[in-house]
Structures are given as C-alpha cells and as structure tokens.
C-alpha cells in the first residue's frame, strides 16, 4: 500500500459546512495583494497556485507571501515551476505534493529548490499532474475521491497516498485519488469584476476545478472589468464570484511568466533567477533587491525594465516584429 503522507485528507462533510458559509451575494472583494495575503494566508496553510508554472501565474501574490514571511506552508506541485521557485526561496514551505517541481522545464533545475529536497527540509509525497488535477476535480465535485488508471506499478504509486480499489461494475483495479481541497488557491486571470467573477483566455489548466475545490480563493487579475460585461456574455465566466474571497488588480501580474494574448515570458529574468540561486547568499541578495526590498509589484516591474521591457514582451507574445508586422519569429 502506498506509503506517502496525505497532507490534506478528504473531508467532504467539513467542506460542505465551509462552503455553506462562504458569502454568496455580490459583495465588493477588491483589495491589495498585501491585504489579501495578510488576511487570507496563514502560516501552515496548504497552498495551490493556478496557471502552469511560468504561464498565467499570480506572481504578485506569491511575492507578497515571501515578503510577509509566511512559513510552514504546504504546497501542491501541479506543475509548479517559477511559483515553486518563489515559495522555495523563502523557504515558505515545508511539505509538498509533487507532480512537477524543482525544474523550470527546458530552462534547467532550480538550485534553491534542489537544496530543500536534497537537504531533507521538505516532507514529500509523490503524485502526477493528472493525479493532482483529478484530486482538485474530486473536491470540486464534492466527493472524497475519483477513480483513475494511472500510477500503477511504479515508485510514484508507492510514494503517493493513493489507494487501489476495485470497480463495483467491471471488477477492474482502479487508482482512487483522494480529493484535495487546498486552504488557499492563488489564481491569475485576464479579467475579473469587483465581486470575483473571472474570465480566462486560452488554456485554463486546472483552474476552474482549483477555484471550486479550495476553501479560500485569491484572484489576481490583469484588469478589472465592469460587472455588466460578465452579464453581457455569461458563457465566458470561468470562475463565479461565490468561489472567490479577494480580488487584486495586478497589470502584468504573471510577469516574468507568460500571459496568453498579453505578454510572453521574460526568459532573461528567469535565467537571472536561476543563476542567482547558485548559493544561498546570492539568492538572498537577489531577493533583497527584487522582492524583499521593494514595496509592491509595480516596483518589481520597474526594476525588471518597466514598461519598455513589457512592451517588448507584448510584441513577442503577439509575434510582432520590431516594425510591428505579424507572424514574426524574430527574437526581439
């Protein structure tokens, strides 16, 4: 039987009570990153981050957690790359459900994240991306588990906290994945209204399920739009307001990550992070300069090149060349 620790056991009835008492009416939830993190993220909480590692991530909210010095957080590693890197930099975390962490895809491995693992500073349970996606889905559906056909026969299975069950109809062996309801979800979206209704353009990754699964949900949005805009086209509402606890408007809020249709990732800055991580000292200096020593996210953007840099990343995203022509594969 798998021997991994189940950091967040499924508790559908306790969650029902929680969700029953979330406010459902249209109340204004707009606040600052500082306030939102200050009030809704506590030491020891279990955290999950929307988007996909370096794409549509709530960077401003993550910086704020680091700046406020949260510790002892648990984290879901559903492809957590730059987001994981920020939490590992604290370190703010002491346990992690791993699907994909430490690496930044083709960019290399995070030395700081490796130090946490290789120094035995984290409790670790192994999963997969689908397992964590379906664990969110289970919580969003209000059931304690979902069956699946993954992980069998591997060490990933052995060090997970899944359970083998038998299908009552077919007799098939199935992998039961326990519902995962994070204490807090942090999700970056394209558009939100003041009540927390949200729209996403492009892939939604696991965020619709994550927003429904989590006890508390903090949204950062590229821009606030009028509430009526949601009522004009309700088909596009991806997260309804009653799932959401706080809304923070953060233009360029996914930087240095990619925000589809808005701006591409800043690969130079991501490389600078990785290089800064080589030693704890160089990382500390980097954090002091870019995160701990600044007041807010706009200051960070300024340090990284400000609007001229962001304009360049926007052209890159839209594949415009330096003259503004489309379909360019130039590197700007």
């Amino acid at each position, binding site marked *: 039987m798998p021997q991994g620790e189940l950091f967040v056991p499924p508790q559908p009835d306790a969650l029902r009570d929680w969700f029953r008492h979330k406010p459902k009416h249209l109340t204004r939830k707009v606040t600052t990153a500082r306030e939102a993190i200050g009030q809704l993220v506590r030491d020891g909480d279990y955290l999950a981050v929307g988007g996909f590692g370096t794409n549509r991530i709530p960077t401003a909210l993550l910086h704020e957690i680091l700046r406020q010095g949260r510790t002892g957080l648990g984290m879901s590693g559903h*492809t957590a790359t730059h987001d994981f890197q920020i939490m590992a930099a604290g370190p703010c975390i002491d346990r992690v459900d791993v699907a994909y962490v*430490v690496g930044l895809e*083709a960019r290399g491995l995070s030395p700081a994240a490796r130090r946490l*693992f290789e120094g035995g500073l984290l409790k670790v349970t192994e999963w997969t991306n689908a397992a964590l996606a379906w664990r969110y889905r289970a919580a969003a559906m209000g059931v304690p588990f979902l069956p699946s056909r993954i992980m069998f026969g591997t060490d990933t299975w052995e060090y997970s906290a899944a359970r083998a069950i038998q299908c009552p109809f077919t007799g098939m062996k199935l992998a039961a994945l326990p519902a995962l309801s994070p204490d807090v979800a942090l999700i970056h979206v394209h558009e939100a209204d003041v009540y927390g209704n949200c729209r996403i353009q492009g892939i939604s990754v696991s965020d619709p399920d994550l927003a429904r699964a989590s006890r508390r949900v903090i949204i950062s949005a590229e821009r606030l739009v009028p509430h009526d805009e949601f009522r004009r086209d309700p088909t596009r509402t991806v997260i309804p307001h009653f799932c959401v606890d706080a809304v923070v408007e953060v233009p360029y809020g996914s930087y240095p990550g990619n925000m589809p249709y808005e701006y591409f990732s800043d690969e130079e800055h991501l490389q600078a992070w990785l290089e800064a991580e080589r030693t704890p000292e160089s990382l500390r200096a980097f954090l002091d300069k870019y995160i701990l020593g600044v007041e807010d996210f706009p200051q960070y953007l300024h340090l990284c090149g400000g609007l001229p840099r962001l304009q360049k990343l926007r052209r890159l995203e839209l594949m415009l060349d330096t003259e503004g022509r489309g379909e360019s*594969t130039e590197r700007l």
Partner: protein
Amino acid sequence: MIPRGGGRALNAYDSYNSMELMICLAARYLEDGATVVVGTGAPCAAAMLAQKLYAPGLVIMFEAGGIGPLLPTMPISVGDSRTFWKGISASSMPEIMELCQRGMVDYTFLGGAQVDMYGNINSTQIGGRQAPPKVRFPGSGGANDLASLCWRTMMIAPQDKRRFVPRLDFMTSPGYLTGPGAREAAGLPPGTGPYKVITQLAVFGFDDATKRMRTENLHPGVSAPEVQDNSGFELLWAPELPVSVPPTGDELAVLRREVDPYRYIIGRN
C-alpha cells in the same frame, strides 16, 4: 557533426549532429492522422517536423491544454501560449489527461534521467528511494500519466551507462514494469507501453516475448558493441539490424529553417 556518406564534397545537408538525427528519425514514426502529446524540446521538434513533412493531419497536444496549434516557434513551456497558437482548442489539463485515459491519444514522448531494460523511466531522483535524495529532479509531471494511458510511449534520449541502468533509482513512469503481462496485472490499460527509444547510437524497440529493449537499427557508423557498451543492461538484438536511414536534405532543411531556426534544440547536441 557526423559526416554522412562517402567521398563526396560535404555540403550543409551532408552532415548532421546526433540531435538532428534523433529528431528526424522520431518524426518518421508519427503517421498522418495520429494524435501525440509532446513536451518541449526534441519531441516537440519531431512532431513539428512530422507535421510539416509527412503528417499534415498530426494532432499535436500539450498536457496543459493546447490542442492542434499551428506551432509558429518552439514552445518554451508545455503551457505557454505557443502551445495553442491558432489551435483547434485551448482546453485544460483534465481535458488532455482524459483524452489519454479514454484511449484517444496514440503517441507520447518522454524523457528521463534513467531508463531500464523494460522501458521504465526515472525522472524523480538519484539516490535511494527514501528522502532526501542525492539529486532531485522534477518528478513525474504528466509523464507517469502519459506513459500509463497513451497507446505508445516513445523516448528520445542520449544513451550511456549512467542513463541505461540495470535498476532505476526510482521508477517514475511505467514501461513494461517487470516484463510480459506486468502492466496489465498492475492495473494499467491493456495494449499500451513503450514503443521506440531513439538514442544517438541506435533505435530500440521492445521484444514481444520478453518486453525487453531490443536494438532494431544502428545509426550510420555505429557498431553493435558500441551500443552495448553504452548500456548498463544487456540489450536484445533484432535478427536484422538495418542501418538507420540518415536525415534527408528535406528533413534537415525544414528542421533547421522552420522548426528550430535559433537552434534551441538542435544546438544542444
């Protein structure tokens, strides 16, 4: 660069590096109308190359949700906006994983730090199974899911004794586990498993009877002992060992000009 062929004067398409060779060989396995979930890097380059040359109807998917993009450049992340650029659908992680689970995905490509003779893969850690590890890697990501659920798993990987190991430090993703019938007995969907492993030296398949890795093609200029010397486990051998057909001028032209003009991947050789 490995010189191709004999005494002719070399031009640009007479030589190629091993990354180019691996990508070109991999691309040929992807038939028109197939579905493939790829990551970034060499697999994505192979899929792009196949789509441009052999398989215009190849449906390329990325685990974060991108389906059927007209890939304008190589994605940096399997979730970046290129993965659904002018795509058929910008969907979600569960959408892709459920496509795989209900049997709609033919191929996937995986990488890893270690592979064993059954095609099992380690992308989690080096060192004992108990934490803390000596070296920590990213973990499964979607690899275990794709290896469990897609019909055919392919690998493009450099080969040496550190990577082709008799015993994995950690089995992240399932190949044929311990041999014939083991996947089904463990609970994995029948009819799935590793299909081809493409290295800088050879192309490997899997022996039907034993489910062990079996050398099927040697790359030009590579000898059988060289292949065995670069494996930490004993390889099986196909009765015939045709030499891999080297990249054609067309393949190299498209790969270099359209697929990877900045040599992000093919420059890594």
